[in-house]
C-alpha cells in the first residue's frame, strides 16, 4: 500500500513538473511571439503628397481626382476629416492630416478657391490664409513576405462605439473572463452533444486570437485544448487592452488574390478606402459581421448574405442598448456601398513598386522591408500615372486595330520624369501590369535615332560656329572600317535632299546627314563626347554609334535625356524620397544633387531643335495635337524592332519603348507606335511652360527659312528666333516664305505665349 502511494506521489510530482515545464516553455514562447507581433508590418509605400498653394497648376477636377483616390466622400454640409464639399469656384476639404518625415500636417478644414485651372486662395475655418497644405499621400503598396497587408490601429484610434459593438457580438464577457468563457464552453458543449459531433467552439476573443495567430485551421478537440491553455496563458500575461488591440489588428477579414486582409483598420481601407475612425455605424456592423466568415459573408460575392449579417449585427447592438432604434433603422436602410475591387489603391502600380524595391534592395534586407513597419515616401504622381495608363490603352487599341501579329503581344515600357528634380513620377513596365519582366529597367534595346540629339550636342560642343541653320550635306556616304567592312547608312525614307539644316537632322532624324556631320566635325571627338553624355559607345567604338546601335533601357534613356532637357545638368533619376522607420526616424533621404554633364549652351540649343521636332518634325503629332511647347525625339530601329519616343514640356519628360520581347521585327515606327503613350500622358496632366532666360554665352538671332541669319527688319513671316553661341551680323535676305508662321507665333510656341 505504502509503495503504491509513494509511486503515485512520485508520478504526480513528475507529471506536475513536466506539465509545469511545458507550461513555462509555452508561456515563454507565447510571450515572445506575442510581443514581437506588433512589429511584423510590411513597409508601406506612399505616393507623393499633393501640395496645394496659391498658383499651383491644378484644376478642380485634378484635385477632386486626388481626393477620390484617397476615398474622400462628397458631402453637402461642412466636411469632417475625409470629406469634401464642392462649391461653384472652390472646394472645402476636411483633410485627414498625416505625419510626414519632415513634420506633421494637421487635420483641418480648408477652403480652396480655383481660378483658371489654378489653385487660388487657401483659407482655414477662421478665414486665415494658408500658404501651403499637403494632402496625405496615396498608399501604393505594402511590402510583405506573406502578402498580408496590415494597417495597424492603436486601441485609442479605434472608435469606442466600434469596440462596444464588437464585444456585444463576439465576446460580451471579454473584460470579465480569464481568457475562456465557461458559459460559452457549456453552450458549445451542449450544442456539440446535440449535434453528435464537434461543430462549435464557444470562442472568446482571446481564443480567436490564439487560433488566428498560432494554430492550424483544423477543428479537433486536442487543438481546442491547446487553444484553451494558450488563451489562459495570454490572459494571465497580458492586459485585456493589449489582447483586444492585437485582436483588432490580427483578425482575418478577407482575401483578394494573394492579399490576405488582417485587422479592422486594413479591412476598413480594403472595403471602404477609409480609416476606421471615419466609418459610419452600418460600416462598423459590416466589418464586425465578417468575423464569423469572411468568405461566406463576402459583401462583393454574396451581397445579400452580407447585408443580412450586417443587419443582424445591428440588431445585436440594439439589444445591448448601444444605440437607439431609429439609429439602427437608419443604418439598416443604407446600402452596402462596397466597390467591386479593393477600395484602396494597393496593387495598382506594380511597375512603380518594383522600381522602388529595386532602389531599396541595396540598402535594406527583405526582412527590414517586410517586417519592420517602414514608411517609404516616393515621388510617384497618381495623376501622371493615370495619364500614362490612358496613353498605353490608346496605343494598344491602335496597334490591335492594325492587326499586329495576333500570336505575340506587343510590349512596352514607359516612364515619366520631373525634369528639374529627376524624380520618376510614373512607370508602366508592361502592357498588362502583370508581374514579371520590367521593361523600363531591364529591356535593353537599340536606341536608333534617339542617339542623334547627342551627336548634334557633341558637334555643337566641338564647333561653336554651328547652329540650327547650319547646312549639312545629305548624300549617300559609305565608310570602310578597320576590318574592311563597308557601312552605308540610308535615310529612313530612302530619299536624300542634298543638303539640310542642322536642326532638321534632329527634327526629321536624317541618317546620312548625321554621318556627314559626325565625320565632318571629327568622329573620335563625337564618340568621346557621346560617351560622356551617357550614350554607351563601347570599346570597339563602332562608327554606327552615331545612328544609335547602342543598347539602352528606357530608364537609361530617360537618365541621359533628363540632362539634355535640364540645361545640361544631370540629376540622378530616383523614385524614393525618404524612408522612415516605425518610430519616425529618417533612415534614408535621397537629397537633390546635380552635375554638369553637357555644356549648358549646347544643351539649350539641342533642346531648341527638339522643339522644332515637335512642331514640324517626326514628333509633330505630339506638338500639333496639343499645340503647346513640347520637345520630342522619335526613334525606330531596323525593320521596326523597336519604336521609341521621348517627349517633354517645360516640366516633365516621358520615354516609351514599344516592341517585342524577343526582338522580332514588328514593323513599328516610333512616331506612330510609341508617341501616343507619352502624348496622352501630357494631355492628361496638362501643359507646363517653363520660360527661362538663355544662359550666358547664348543669345537669339533671327533665322530665315533657308537657315540664314537675318535682320530684325524682315517681316515676321520670314523669320524665327534661334539661340546661337556667337556674335553675328545678318547675312541672309528677307526671302518670301511659304510658311504662314509668324515669328511671334514661334515664340509663343516655345514659351507658351
Amino acid at each position: 500500500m505504502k509503495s503504491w502511494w509513494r509511486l503515485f506521489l512520485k508520478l504526480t510530482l513528475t507529471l506536475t513538473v513536466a506539465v509545469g515545464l511545458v507550461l513555462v516553455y509555452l508561456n515563454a514562447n507565447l510571450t515572445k511571439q506575442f510581443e514581437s507581433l506588433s512589429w511584423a508590418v510590411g513597409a508601406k509605400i506612399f505616393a507623393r503628397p499633393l501640395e496645394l498653394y496659391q498658383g499651383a497648376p491644378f484644376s478642380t477636377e485634378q484635385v477632386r481626382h486626388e481626393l477620390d483616390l484617397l476615398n474622400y466622400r462628397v458631402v453637402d454640409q461642412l466636411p469632417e476629416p475625409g470629406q469634401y464639399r464642392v462649391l461653384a469656384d472652390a472646394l472645402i476639404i476636411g483633410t485627414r492630416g498625416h505625419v510626414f518625415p519632415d513634420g506633421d500636417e494637421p487635420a483641418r478644414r480648408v477652403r480652396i478657391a480655383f481660378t483658371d485651372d489654378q489653385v487660388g486662395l487657401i483659407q482655414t475655418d477662421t478665414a486665415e490664409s494658408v500658404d501651403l497644405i499637403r494632402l496625405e499621400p496615396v498608399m501604393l503598396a505594402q511590402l510583405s513576405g506573406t502578402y498580408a497587408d496590415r494597417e495597424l490601429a492603436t486601441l485609442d484610434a479605434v472608435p469606442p462605439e466600434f469596440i462596444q459593438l464588437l464585444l456585444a457580438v463576439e465576446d460580451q464577457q471579454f473584460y470579465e473572463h480569464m481568457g475562456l468563457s465557461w458559459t460559452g464552453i457549456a453552450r458549445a458543449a451542449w450544442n456539440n452533444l446535440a449535434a453528435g459531433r464537434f461543430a462549435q467552439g464557444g470562442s472568446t476573443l482571446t481564443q480567436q486570437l490564439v487560433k488566428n495567430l498560432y494554430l492550424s485551421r483544423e477543428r479537433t478537440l486536442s487543438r481546442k485544448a491547446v487553444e484553451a491553455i494558450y488563451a489562459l496563458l495570454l490572459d494571465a500575461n497580458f492586459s485585456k487592452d493589449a489582447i483586444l488591440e492585437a485582436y483588432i489588428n490580427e483578425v482575418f477579414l478577407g482575401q483578394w488574390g494573394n492579399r490576405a486582409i488582417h485587422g479592422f483598420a486594413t479591412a476598413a481601407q480594403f472595403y471602404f478606402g477609409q480609416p476606421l475612425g471615419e466609418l459610419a455605424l452600418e460600416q462598423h456592423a459590416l466589418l464586425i459581421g465578417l468575423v464569423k466568415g469572411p468568405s461566406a459573408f463576402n459583401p462583393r460575392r454574396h451581397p445579400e448574405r452580407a447585408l443580412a449579417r450586417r443587419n443582424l449585427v445591428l440588431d445585436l447592438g440594439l439589444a445591448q442598448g448601444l444605440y437607439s432604434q431609429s439609429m439602427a433603422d437608419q443604418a439598416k436602410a443604407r446600402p452596402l456601398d462596397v466597390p467591386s475591387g479593393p477600395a484602396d489603391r494597393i496593387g495598382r502600380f506594380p511597375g512603380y513598386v518594383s522600381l522602388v524595391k529595386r532602389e531599396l534592395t541595396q540598402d535594406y534586407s527583405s526582412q527590414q522591408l517586410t517586417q519592420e513597419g517602414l514608411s517609404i515616401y516616393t515621388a510617384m504622381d497618381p495623376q501622371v500615372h493615370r495619364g500614362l495608363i490612358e496613353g498605353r490603352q490608346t496605343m494598344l487599341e491602335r496597334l490591335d486595330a492594325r492587326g499586329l501579329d495576333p500570336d505575340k503581344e506587343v510590349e512596352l515600357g514607359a516612364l515619366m520624369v520631373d525634369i528639374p528634380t529627376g524624380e520618376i513620377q510614373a512607370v508602366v513596365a508592361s502592357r498588362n501590369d502583370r508581374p514579371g519582366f520590367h521593361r523600363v529597367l531591364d529591356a535593353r534595346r537599340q536606341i536608333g535615332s534617339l542617339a542623334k540629339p547627342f551627336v548634334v550636342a557633341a558637334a555643337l560642343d566641338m564647333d561653336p560656329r554651328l547652329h540650327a541653320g547650319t547646312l549639312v550635306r545629305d548624300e549617300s556616304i559609305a565608310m570602310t572600317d578597320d576590318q574592311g567592312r563597308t557601312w552605308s547608312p540610308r535615310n529612313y525614307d530612302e530619299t536624300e535632299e542634298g543638303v539640310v539644316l542642322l536642326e532638321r537632322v534632329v527634327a526629321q532624324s536624317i541618317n546620312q546627314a548625321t554621318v556627314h556631320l559626325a565625320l565632318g566635325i571629327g568622329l573620335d571627338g563625337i564618340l568621346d563626347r557621346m560617351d560622356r553624355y551617357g550614350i554607351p559607345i563601347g570599346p570597339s567604338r563602332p562608327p554606327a554609334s552615331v545612328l544609335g546601335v547602342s543598347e539602352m533601357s528606357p530608364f537609361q534613356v530617360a537618365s541621359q535625356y533628363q540632362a539634355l532637357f535640364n540645361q545640361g545638368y544631370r540629376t540622378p533619376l530616383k523614385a524614393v524620397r525618404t524612408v522612415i522607420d516605425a518610430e519616425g526616424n529618417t533612415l534614408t533621404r535621397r537629397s537633390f544633387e546635380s552635375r554638369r554633364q553637357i555644356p549648358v549652351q549646347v544643351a539649350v540649343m539641342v533642346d531648341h531643335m527638339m522643339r522644332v521636332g515637335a512642331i514640324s518634325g517626326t514628333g509633330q503629332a505630339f506638338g500639333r495635337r496639343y499645340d503647346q511647347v513640347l520637345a520630342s525625339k522619335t526613334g525606330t530601329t531596323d525593320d521596326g524592332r523597336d519604336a521609341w519616343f521621348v517627349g517633354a514640356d517645360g516640366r516633365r519628360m516621358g520615354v516609351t519603348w514599344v516592341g517585342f520581347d524577343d526582338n522580332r521585327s514588328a514593323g513599328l515606327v516610333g512616331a506612330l507606335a510609341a508617341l501616343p503613350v507619352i502624348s496622352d500622358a501630357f494631355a492628361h496632366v496638362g501643359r507646363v511652360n517653363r520660360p527661362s532666360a538663355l544662359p550666358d554665352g547664348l543669345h537669339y538671332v533671327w533665322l530665315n527659312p533657308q537657315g540664314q541669319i537675318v535682320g530684325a527688319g524682315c517681316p515676321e513671316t520670314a523669320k524665327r528666333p534661334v539661340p546661337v553661341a556667337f556674335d553675328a551680323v545678318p547675312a541672309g535676305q528677307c526671302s518670301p516664305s511659304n510658311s504662314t508662321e509668324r515669328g511671334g507665333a514661334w515664340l509663343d510656341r516655345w514659351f507658351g505665349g
Partner: protein
Amino acid sequence: MRFGMILGVAVIVTGCTQAPVARPPVVDASWRATEDDRVLSRTDVNSASSRIISGPDRTREQGETNVVVPVEPIARIEPIDQPADAEGMSPAVLSLLEQADQLRTAGDFTGASSRLERAQRIAPDEPEVYFQLAGVRLEQGRFDEAVNIATQAVDLAGSDNAMKRDLYTLVARAREAAGDTAGASQARQMARSFGS
C-alpha cells in the same frame, strides 16, 4: 580608327529663289573643324559682309576672305534675351525658404534640405532656392555638391548679377574649404566680375 570615305563632292549651294545669297558653309564628311578653317574660308567663295562668322576673339585670324566683326552685333534679339518677367516668389516658396532658414540656423540640415527641395519642386527655376540649398550643403561639409548646385544656379540666374556674385562667392568658399585654392580664387574673380 581609320576610314576610307567615298564622298559626294562638296558643292556650294546657292540661294533658291534669290540671286546671290550668301550661304553658311555646308558641313559634310570632308569638312574638318581645324584651326585653319575656323572662319570657314575654304568653302566661302561668296564672302560678303553679311555672313556667318566667328566670335570676336578670333578676328585675329582673319584673312582676305574673312569678315570684320562689328563691335555691336546687330543680329541679337535683346528682348527675349532677358529673363521671363521676374514675378515675385510665391508665398508658398517664401514660407518654405523661411522655414528652411530657421531650421538651418538651428542646425537641422536635413529639415532645411527637405523644405528647400519642396520649394524647388514648386519653383524649379528660382536661383534663390538653389543658392540656399548650396549653402546648406556647404555647412554640411558636402563641398562638391555645394559647388555643383551653385554652378547650376548661375545658369538659372539670367541677368541677376547680384545673385551670380553671391553664387560665385559661395563656390569660392566651398572650394576653399575643400582645399582647392586655385579654383577658389578663380571663382572669386568671377564673383568680382559681377560687381561688389
